[in-house]
């Protein structure tokens, strides 16, 4: 009798684990940081309220970032970013829609660290471009830690740098993404 109970419990636990491991994962507290090194000034800012969903079954993923959510240390830099460069009132969100192209190589039911190949479309400042990068996906029991670092060119997204400071502000921006995703229930 006890043996039957034990087997039933094990089967249920396994089923629950499989159903989570094949489901969707999400976060609303992801972090995105950007950094640009330039002669005039280093530009860096962080957003701590990034929303993301990953469908582990298909590998489809989506990120959304409110541009006004980026925090700068300098007030003037934050104002210029929102008003002159990114035009946050006109283009309030940046979004990535894509997928993990090697999703079949990731075992969401087994704790471990995997390299994820990511491909999709990144929209910033109302301009959408194809993006291809790699990231690290760490499966840790029931949650996932996803990290990726990639570079974008401001000119690709029609972000205009005033000619007076054109040579002093870098066109190249390093973007770091760090998210801890948990199972999306329901």
């Amino acid at each position, binding site marked *: 009798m006890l043996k039957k109970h034990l087997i039933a419990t094990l089967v249920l636990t396994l089923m629950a684990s499989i159903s989570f491991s094949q489901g969707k994962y999400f976060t609303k507290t992801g972090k995105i940081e950007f950094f640009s090194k330039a002669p005039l000034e280093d530009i860096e800012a962080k957003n701590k*309220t990034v*929303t993301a969903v990953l469908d582990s079954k298909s590998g489809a993923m*989506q990120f959304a970032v409110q541009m006004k959510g980026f925090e*700068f240390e*300098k007030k003037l830099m934050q104002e210029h970013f929102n008003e002159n460069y990114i035009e946050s009132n006109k283009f309030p969100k940046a979004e990535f829609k894509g997928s993990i192209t090697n999703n079949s190589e990731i075992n969401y039911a087994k704790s471990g660290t995997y390299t994820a190949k990511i491909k999709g479309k990144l929209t910033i400042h109302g301009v959408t471009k194809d993006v291809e990068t790699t990231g690290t996906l760490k499966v840790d029991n029931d949650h996932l830690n996803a990290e990726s670092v990639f570079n974008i060119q401001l000119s690709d997204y029609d972000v205009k740098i005033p000619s007076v400071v054109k040579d002093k502000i870098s066109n190249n921006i390093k973007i770091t993404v760090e998210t801890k995703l948990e199972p999306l229930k329901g």
Partner: protein
Amino acid sequence: MKRKIIIGILIIVVICGFIGYRIYSEETADIVNKNPDEITDVKSLIAAFDADTASASKKYIDKIVEVTGTVKKIDTTGSLVLGEEGHLSELVVGLDRRHMKDYEKVKPGSVAVIQGICSGYSKGGGDDLLAALGTTVELKSAGVKNKK
């Protein structure tokens, strides 16, 4: 006379340079304990955006907002989530760099008063993957307010 003019110009240049440097190096303000522009609670804030996004945006976005609500999740890397258990519509809070340890003042399930700048609103729709996440209102540069 010429010397006086040169000295005058130099003084003006130095003053302008000083003012320019002050403006350039001014840090973003710590607004956590400033007087808020709006006072509300999580449920009313989300309902306001759901009912009329345009007028809620006008009222709250870029404003200092004090919000009371139940803490659902604590992210020790600088974020809090407030809302009702079982509902995915939530207030997501990014803590100000000077208030990164404010998560220690709250516990999951406790009622907290948060103050920050309302930085955005989103509600998924259609076949969007994010649609399942309900309504999300965001605060940045925030902290846990010490109420009298």
